[in-house]
């Protein structure tokens, strides 16, 4: 089983996993054990910020798995991310209990505010962490399964698929804005207090969440990698290159697509669940189509079809975003827009793609 995950490991993959392991240990240590005055101290806000980047990186890896390796450009992956986030948010909401403004032991504040008397069934059991964790994976997967089943079976491909994935997340955006959906409407879920009995504000919790995100990113990467280097991954690439030819070879293209789409959605859901406790809020704007498209550019910047590149792209672009919006807020959109244009025109293989072709090293795709 272990061998399954480390099949055909190359230098880049090894380096990436070691890097993640290192920061998973080092960053919490530098944050908690090193005194604040020291130049090596990492402040807690940075820990959470970088934790957020890593969650995005996991989303990017999930997206790269379907786009880079199977040619499914999903413009709705933000929906899976947000659904995972909402599942985690619902757990965190129910942990608030009587500490809310209205001090209702069961109902979250916004429900009391809306004058609801009973917990909607969608919220049942979310006070159990294990249930929430299952939902984090299950809800996005089931949505991906149902959606993908319809879409792939009827052979919706290319831009048509992109457009309907975008419509999907748009529909969810509209739905979650509604108060009567019972997910906090406009304001979403926030004011979280603790997770598994630990305060979400406490530096130790934040450091732990960071480490956990790094670990999940590494796991996600390993799973994705194991998939793409397997024969399955080869079939995916074949589908990407000549879908109908693959069919005539006897491969049931839709089940391949469906499986990888569901795995990817589950991964995106986990990313969302890791994201929410670190930023402290989840609201419908996470469903905005523009978010999903932004995630696509992370992958494109880093280099699609490389997995490592996707993660790298997510971190780089978000770092640039934080930095630019801090310095020149109105320039962020120019920067992002220019990034979209320049990368597609001049860097079609992204950073990693450009680097590997420069130094003549094959990427870590199926080919060897």
């Amino acid at each position, binding site marked *: 089983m272990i061998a399954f995950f480390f099949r055909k490991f190359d230098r880049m993959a090894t380096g990436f996993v070691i890097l993640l392991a290192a920061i998973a240990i080092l960053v919490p240590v530098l944050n908690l054990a090193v005194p604040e005055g020291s130049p090596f101290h990492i402040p807690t806000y940075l820990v959470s910020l970088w934790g957020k980047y890593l969650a995005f990186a996991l989303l990017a890896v999930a997206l790269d798995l379907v786009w880079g390796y199977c040619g499914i450009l999903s413009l709705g992956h933000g929906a899976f991310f947000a659904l995972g986030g909402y599942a985690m948010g619902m757990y965190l909401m129910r942990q608030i209990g009587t500490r809310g403004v209205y001090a209702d032991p069961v109902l979250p504040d916004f429900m009391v505010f809306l004058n609801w008397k009973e917990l909607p069934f969608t919220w049942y059991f979310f006070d159990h962490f294990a249930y929430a964790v299952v939902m984090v994976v299950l809800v996005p997967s089931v949505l991906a399964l149902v959606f993908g089943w319809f879409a792939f079976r009827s052979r919706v491909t290319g831009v048509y698929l992109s457009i309907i994935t975008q419509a999907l997340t748009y529909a969810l955006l509209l739905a979650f804005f509604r108060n009567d959906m019972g997910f906090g409407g406009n304001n979403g879920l926030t004011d979280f207090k603790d997770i598994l009995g630990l305060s979400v504000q406490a530096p130790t919790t934040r450091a732990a969440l960071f480490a956990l995100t790094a670990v999940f990113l590494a796991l996600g990467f390993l799973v994705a990698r194991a998939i793409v280097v*397997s*024969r399955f991954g080869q079939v995916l690439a074949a589908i990407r290159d000549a879908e109908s030819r693959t069919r005539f070879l006897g491969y049931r293209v839709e089940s391949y697509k469906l499986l990888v789409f569901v795995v990817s959605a589950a991964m995106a859901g986990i990313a969302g669940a890791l994201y929410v406790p670190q930023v402290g809020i989840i609201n419908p704007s996470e469903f905005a189509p523009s978010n999903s498209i932004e995630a696509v550019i992370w992958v494109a910047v880093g280099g699609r079809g490389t997995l490592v590149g996707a993660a790298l792209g997510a971190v780089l672009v978000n770092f640039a975003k934080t930095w630019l919006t801090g310095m020149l807020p109105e320039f962020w959109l120019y920067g992002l827009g220019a990034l979209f244009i320049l990368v597609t025109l001049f860097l079609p293989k992204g950073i990693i793609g450009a680097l590997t072709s420069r130094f003549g090293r094959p990427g870590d795709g199926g080919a060897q």
Partner: protein
Amino acid sequence: MSADLTDSILYLDAVSVSFDGFRALHDLSFVVGRGELRAIIGPNGAGKTTMMDVVTGKTRPDKGIVIFDGSIDLTTRDEASIAAFGIGRKFQKPTVFDGQTVEDSLLLALEGPRSAFSALFGWRSRVAVEQIIDKLAIIRLGDLRSKLAGSLSHGQKQWLEIGMLLAQNPKLLLVDEPVAGMTDAETEETARLLTSIAGEHAVVVVEHDMSFVRALGCKVTCLHEGSVLAEGTIDSVSANERVIDVYLGR
């Protein structure tokens, strides 16, 4: 007729297909026996490729019967299951997986389980490697085994597609214009290859190159406007008045 059916690998009866009112196939009926080599000729637009589309499940016939291996009704199956029954196809326009190496393309085509889960956890066996080496030798692309398929020349792509077809080890091979873009020597080689695999597999070849068809030395069916115009040996067909009129020219 029923003897026909049980002896046949492919049995078409009164198949019609139309596109927006245009009849591409019109009551097309013919039978291919097990292990038979059959050449199909006919002018452009006669419906040869469309016939293959119908057999492989790409196009659904408006009416008619298509039976494979004496008992399997193909009109209700999708491409993947038809391929799984043992029908392989080479396209008129060579289509290979641009991003895969020659070797991996053959590996993908190789007979074996096709389900997503088996692909996820299985890996190439030694037998598979041997088979691939075998096929590489047949199509003489051994030197190019780790080259990307997308970077091959037109003729090399034709050979790769033939190799993939062989790797599939199907009961019936449908080969659409295999020698377009090949040299004369290669054309002869292809004819030799196809005749050699016939017997074990049934082969249906569509081709305009009459010397190639002659080299195949098999029964010939001439299609015209979606139905069979003449059928028989190459000599009888090419002597047929109507075939000369519509296809061969005087």
